[in-house]
């Protein structure tokens, strides 16, 4: 075993995270902000960030914040889901809000996603800006829900195993209500146009993954499952 990257100390909460390979062959890592919202805005901290690494752990020379900085995007709170859209190569990420505003973000190089020390569930500002107001030009989520669902794993359904309608859809899980959700993206696949829960499990949904030609898989605290049509 080789350690490729060692981040800052873990904390009592919000440790995240998830790792995926991008279409560019790089390793993308999302790490929570360790329950220190301000760290999500500090580019020198690995916490509250989506990081981009070479597969051997080196920092790519074309990273947006400099060749020595693994940060790719910032302003993240606590994520357990990240996936690449196989149709566009875009990186999407789920982020858990505090007592409000669970969200899904489309991750863009160098952008901030607004979580920071000014975040609040009070209004104004109106949601989702109240939890996404820190940093320069904070990017708002493509989808959000005011009452937290405990959003978890995220995947893209790239085949018709769940039916024609689900091909290309985004699938994600939730921890609080044991559900699996399906979201439909816009025609340019940059935004989310509609979302609904399509399945309620007996336990909390932890991780969701897809394998082309094999459909959607998910896990709970006791097992692994495949989501199939009735």
């Amino acid at each position, binding site marked *: *075993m*080789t*350690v*490729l*990257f*060692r*981040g*800052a*100390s*873990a*904390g009592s*909460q*919000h*440790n*995240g*995270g*998830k*790792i*995926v*390979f991008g279409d560019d*062959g790089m*390793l993308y*890592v999302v*790490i929570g902000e360790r329950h220190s919202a301000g760290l999500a805005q500090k580019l020198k901290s*690995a916490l509250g960030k989506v990081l981009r690494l070479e*597969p*051997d*752990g*080196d*920092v790519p020379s074309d990273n947006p914040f400099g060749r020595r900085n693994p940060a790719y995007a910032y302003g993240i709170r*606590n994520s357990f889901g990240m996936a690449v859209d196989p149709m566009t190569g875009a990186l999407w990420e789920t982020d858990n809000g505090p007592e409000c505003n669970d969200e899904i973000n489309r991750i863009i190089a160098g952008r901030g996603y607004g979580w920071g020390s000014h975040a609040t569930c009070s209004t104004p500002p109106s949601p989702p800006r109240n939890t996404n107001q820190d940093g320069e030009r904070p990017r708002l989520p493509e989808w959000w829900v005011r009452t937290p669902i405990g959003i978890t794993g995220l995947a893209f359904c790239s085949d018709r195993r*769940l*039916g024609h309608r689900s091909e290309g859809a985004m699938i994600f899980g939730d921890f609080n209500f044991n*559900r*699996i959700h399906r979201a439909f993206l816009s025609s340019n696949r940059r935004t989310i146009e509609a979302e609904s*829960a*399509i*399945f*309620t*499990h*007996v*336990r909390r949904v*932890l*991780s969701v*993954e897809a*394998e082309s030609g*094999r459909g959607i*898989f*998910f*896990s709970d*605290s*006791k*097992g*692994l*499952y*495949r*989501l*199939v*049509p*009735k």
Partner: protein
Amino acid sequence: MVRGSRSRRWTAVSVLACAALLAGLPGPAQAKGFRARTLIKGIEHPATFDVAPNGDIFYGERLSGEIRVYVRDRDRTRWFFHIRKVVSSLTSGTGLLAVTLDPAYPDVPYVYALATRRVSGSVGRRCCGSPTTGARERR
């Protein structure tokens, strides 16, 4: 990571890579249109997994730091790797957090993991090499 005092220890979020050695029951409750087909049950907190091209599923047990493989053709699991010194707690969201396969797996036989680990200088030297540039090793 070896600069700390003798007794100093901390928990770090680490990205790890390890080389690969190898290579239904009724579902739970249903909602509209879909159901869950159980692949394996009775395992401990598989908070993360990835599906290999042959259908095998590499899953990480969050609390123990064990990575196991559900071998689809044999409908059984086997041990793959143990990430040592994992610090885990369900309340703090720590443990073995993420597992993913190299996109070219199994031709490139690496498995990547994200975990919170208790790190001391001696452990860092022995098992991990340089934290940011260490070459991967084939086990």
